[in-house]
């Protein structure tokens, strides 16, 4: 189908292939897909080309995610289609070290930097050749076609999931490839930094990351998404993680895009026997942010910890859809999400837990707490448990509330002004998530940012 669509005639190197917005959503989607369907400079191996072509078909078939779809009921992505969506172009003027200094957490780490989706070697710092850690541009690694990549890339998050995952799978150009050898612990944390720098409205980057931890390996990764421009850009990323037996991976996503940007992120982890995945999703920016954080147990004894903090102000919409698939027995999952909504912001949390028929002795716990700071802020929270086994422990709880008057009064009665007291309480609420992050400089950075954000209290 896609092959039959007209290729845009613009030169990909100069300017951009803008999809002229036609009348209906369907036409717009066709135009978007057409804008992306063009020959790529990257040499992807044949098996991957096949998958990409299939994903392109999926994207057209699944169609754009609309509020008529149960999974997108509260998250209207239609404004996205009003933008002249097109693949992000490589910027002629790459940012320098100074431009990114505010986004590095002051962290001693290996760092991969992508600007509008394009790998930027000069801003990156990689481990030496003999390191137990393989780290670099996914597109470059793909040319060598390592078997481990073939085993995992696009196998866990695929085109069939939804429009955005399909779009990414069909048309991604690059992203990070991370692989740590069996039994090894990475000697430094890894920072994947995605920078949106394009001034072009509708510029869309599709980062694709693959993170592999072999048997018994250990790894800490920060994936952060930031903006250097205020243009209404789009980032639609997919990160797949595969954990070998006994592997330990901590993945911390920090999204602080500009409030004009659209951000869609899909994170899918698959866990082998006795492995442990800790996920943090800290969602601070973007006009619309949709995060899909998903874990699947492929063997017994796994543990998945999903933490999240989302803050909204102004007209922001921030959505987390989590899925924990207890496909195997004797696994544990703990979900802990906090949301703070101010202004006219809208928060969405949907926590799905599947406990399959044979997944006995599952221990699943989900907590979602929300703080509303204004009369016009809104939260939709929905736990969704589907349990097909009978010997399991599953608990969930969701709360939506305001700052406690009792606590506020206690602080005031000690001389702390009401605005400062509010800030202290909000920050304490947010810290409940941040303190779970296992990388101290990231914790410190976030605490500091929060302190700034809540002063003065947003109305």
């Amino acid at each position, binding site marked *: 189908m896609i092959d039959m669509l007209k290729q845009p005639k613009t030169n990909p190197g100069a300017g951009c292939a803008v999809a002229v917005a036609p009348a209906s959503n369907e036409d717009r989607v066709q135009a978007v897909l057409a804008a992306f369907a063009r020959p790529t400079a990257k040499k992807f191996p044949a098996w991957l080309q096949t998958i990409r072509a299939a994903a392109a078909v999926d994207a057209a078939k699944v169609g754009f995610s609309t509020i008529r779809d149960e999974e997108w009921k509260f998250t209207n992505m239609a404004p996205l289609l009003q933008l002249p969506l097109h693949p992000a172009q490589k910027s002629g003027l790459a940012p320098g070290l100074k431009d990114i200094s505010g986004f590095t957490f002051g962290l001693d780490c290996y760092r991969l930097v992508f600007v509008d989706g394009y790998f930027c070697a000069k801003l990156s710092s990689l481990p030496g050749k003999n390191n137990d850690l393989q780290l670099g541009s996914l597109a470059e690694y793909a040319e060598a076609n390592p078997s481990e990549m073939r085993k995992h890339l696009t196998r866990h998050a695929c085109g069939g999931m939804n429009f955005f995952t399909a779009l990414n799978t069909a048309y991604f150009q690059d992203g990070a490839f991370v692989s740590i050898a069996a039994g090894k612990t990475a000697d430094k944390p890894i920072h994947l930094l995605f920078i949106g720098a394009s001034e072009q409205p509708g510029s869309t980057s599709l980062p694709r990351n693959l993170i592999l931890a072999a048997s018994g390996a250990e790894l800490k990764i920060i994936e952060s998404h930031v903006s250097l421009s205020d243009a209404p850009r789009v980032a639609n990323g997919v990160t797949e993680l595969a954990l070998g037996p006994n592997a330990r991976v901590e993945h911390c996503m920090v999204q602080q895009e500009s409030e004009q940007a659209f951000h869609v992120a899909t994170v899918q982890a698959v866990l082998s026997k006795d492995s442990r995945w800790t996920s943090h999703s800290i969602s601070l920016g973007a006009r619309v942010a949709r995060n899909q954080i998903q874990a699947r147990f492929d063997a017994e004894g796994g543990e998945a910890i999903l933490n999240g903090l989302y803050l909204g102000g102004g007209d922001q919409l921030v959505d987390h859809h989590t899925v924990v698939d207890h496909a195997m027995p004797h696994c544990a999952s703990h979900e802990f999400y906090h949301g703070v909504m101010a202004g006219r912001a809208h928060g969405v949390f949907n926590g799905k837990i599947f406990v399959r028929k044979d997944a006995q002795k599952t221990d699943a716990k989900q907590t979602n707490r929300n703080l509303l700071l204004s009369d016009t802020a809104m939260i939709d929270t929905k736990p969704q448990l589907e349990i097909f086994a009978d010997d399991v422990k599953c608990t969930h709880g969701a709360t939506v509330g305001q700052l*406690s*008057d*009792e*606590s506020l*009064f*206690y*602080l*005031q*009665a*000690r*001389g*702390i*002004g*009401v605005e*400062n*007291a509010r800030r*202290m*309480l909000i*920050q*304490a*609420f947010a*810290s*409940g998530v941040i303190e779970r992050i296992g990388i101290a400089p990231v914790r410190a950075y976030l605490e500091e940012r929060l302190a700034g954000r809540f002063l003065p209290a947003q109305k």
Partner: protein
Amino acid sequence: MLEIHNLCAGVNGKPILKDLNLRVKTGEIHAIMGPNGSGKSTLAQVLAGRSDYTVTGGSVLFNGVSLLEMKPEDRARAGIFLAFQYPVEIPGVNSTVFLKAALNECRKARGEQELDAMEFLALVKQKSKLLELDPSLLNRSVNEGFSGGEKKRNEVFQMAVLEPKLAILDETDSGLDIDALKIVAEGVNKLHRPDNSAVVITHYQRLLDYIVPDVVHVLAQGRIVKTGGKELALELEKRGYDWVLEKVNPNASHD
């Protein structure tokens, strides 16, 4: 120091304090006793500025300044301290950060220099000794997971750090065993100076074995119905409250 005239206050339209009058001079310790539901805690909360209570009449002067229009934080900065009957647990707010912020707000209001971290820690060390408070509690969130006794001791500790002019202790003795009670009472005594005052609200006489008041009041049905010296407390302990109430208000049924 504190002058309350015909104070009327209630909650959700229900009157609780009815024409309450009270005068506390500088340097005095007053005890307010009374049966449950007489309005003791309401008085404490109204003086501290809790907005859940509506003041419907009367006036409160604190060192000559009208208190009722002031925000709770301004009352605290002016030197009023309420030791809560039920200290609030505030998860995520570190005790030290909280207390340092509170102290510096109060010092700023008094025109004093703010303390830096080192100076503050030295002060905390000194005061925690006074209250025999385990200093490790201060590394935790405010009151979170504290035992009942630790919470009450922490209230008096905060009082020691903030050095208020008028301390209102709302049933600080409730829920304390005798050892903790002694420590808390001793703390209050040590902090007492000729230039500050305290109002000790208590249901039982027990606390007054350790904190000797200058004046004892009986609060019943929303007003002070009897005032006397420290011997009044002993009499109340022996005879209960009924005899006071009967004497004051023989037709209690239509009150």
